[in-house]
């Protein structure tokens, strides 16, 4: 297994990074036949937020600007970049455009995933105009990639309940707003996915990208996809499947059958784990060793970046955390699941940073 360190990756980035958070993810796909190896970066959840006119929230801008700068310094060069969703905070054209302006600084091709903050103002119209379809697939060096729009919901919620798109977006933007509605991929995309996968050999590793987790973690904050089981069933025939998702703004990983799940950190702000909500019952995978609590005195804390190494389709995520030990979550063939190589059996106490 090849674990790259941050210094190898960010050649010449010393002056820029200087021990701060690196809010992007680099994914390395390493195959038994090393000529198939490749890397990609993964940037997610920038939540670009307009204050007024050309004024945007500085903190969120900085996170994305830093991610772009560092992705451009990565070595080896990634083959492409995934953007995991939620470019915008309130789905406004101005927010999406401002985010895409910053992202246009990337030197590599970007594949985009739709987030709920990009969608619920105009039902993704502006996003699609700028970026194209919200679900698609492609093949790259022996791997089949699928992108899904997983943040749809029930039609009556979307179409019949709100006086306008702004009100609808406002409700869906509030993670803890009880008037929200559970995310789903929906019947239409599931039918498309079934057809798309029918062409793929079961020995081909499949990687799926969605904004929400294609597993059920905590419904109260929509760390959830209503039809997760149905998607998992469609992915079941394949020998190896990886699912990467954004939305949760924290390190999560899990193994369900043949599917390894990994979440990305946000470039904007970290979220507490569902267990920290005293009133919640959640099923955060027991497997996940949680992130340390964030330092409120350091605005980039617990926003971070990861890169992934893949052997025969198995992923190794590497997380860089400022002022905290870096973390590596690797697929352990002996146990058949992703594990934190250092902390899985030696859990970190919260806030060692303080």
């Amino acid at each position: 297994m090849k674990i790259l360190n941050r210094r190898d990756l960010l050649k010449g980035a010393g002056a820029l990074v200087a021990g701060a958070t690196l809010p992007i993810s680099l994914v390395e796909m390493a195959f038994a036949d090393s000529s198939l190896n490749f890397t990609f970066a993964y940037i997610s959840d920038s939540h670009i937020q307009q204050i007024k006119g050309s004024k945007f929230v500085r903190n969120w801008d900085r996170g994305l600007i830093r991610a772009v700068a560092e992705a451009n310094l990565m070595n080896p060069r990634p083959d492409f970049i995934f953007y995991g969703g939620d470019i915008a905070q309130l789905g406004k054209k101005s927010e999406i455009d401002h985010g895409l302006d910053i992202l246009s600084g990337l030197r590599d091709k970007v594949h985009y995933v739709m987030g709920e903050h990009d969608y619920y103002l105009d039902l993704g119209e502006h996003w699609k105009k700028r970026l194209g379809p919200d679900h698609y697939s492609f093949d790259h060096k022996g791997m089949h990639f699928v992108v899904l729009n997983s943040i749809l919901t029930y039609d009556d919620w979307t179409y019949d309940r709100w006086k306008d798109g702004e009100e609808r977006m406002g409700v869906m933007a509030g993670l803890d707003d009880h008037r929200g509605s559970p995310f789903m991929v929906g019947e239409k995309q599931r039918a498309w996915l079934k057809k798309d996968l029918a062409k793929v050999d079961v020995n081909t590793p499949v990687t799926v990208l969605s904004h929400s987790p294609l597993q059920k973690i905590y419904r109260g904050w929509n760390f959830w996809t209503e039809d997760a089981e149905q998607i998992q069933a469609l992915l079941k025939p394949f020998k190896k499947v990886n699912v990467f998702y954004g939305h949760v703004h924290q390190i999560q990983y899990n193994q369900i059958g043949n599917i390894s799940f990994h979440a990305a950190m946000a470039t904007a702000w970290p979220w507490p784990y569902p267990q920290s909500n005293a009133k919640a019952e959640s099923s955060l995978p027991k497997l996940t060793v949680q992130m340390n609590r964030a330092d409120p005195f350091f605005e980039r804390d617990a926003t971070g970046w990861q890169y992934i190494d893949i052997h025969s389709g198995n992923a190794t995520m590497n997380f860089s955390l400022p002022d905290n030990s870096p973390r590596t979550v690797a697929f352990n063939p002996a146990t058949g699941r992703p594990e934190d190589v250092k902390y899985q059996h030696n859990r970190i106490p919260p806030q060692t940073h303080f």
Partner: protein
Amino acid sequence: MTSKTVTMVVLITAVLLMTGIQAVQADEYTSADLELWQNEYDAAVKRGRQVFTDQKLGTNGVVCAQCHPNAANTHPETYPKYQKQLGKVATMAEMINFCIMNPLEGSALALDDQRMVDMQAYITNERKGESLAPGKH
């Protein structure tokens, strides 16, 4: 005074005190009182949630709930506690002001500002049932 008289004086005082308490208890609070207290508290919690999601609290439109869904990670039960970066034992209100001034780019509230009190009502209410753990990080 002998020690006997002292005892007597104390006893008499105690009896007087008890009678005093009985007098207060005779004036029992009514269900209307209970209702008032509950309603006032509930109203503060409700207003607190509004402040917690108020885009006008700071200057950049960012709201508390964006980072603290259900007021998670505010840990009211751990205050007062030592905050290394403040270099002292602080109350929750001081940390609320820290978050108003930084992520929200706003100005600190007076500690007895109605919004400050209401936010504390909301935050603490979300953590109802947690045991007190003052000083805990």
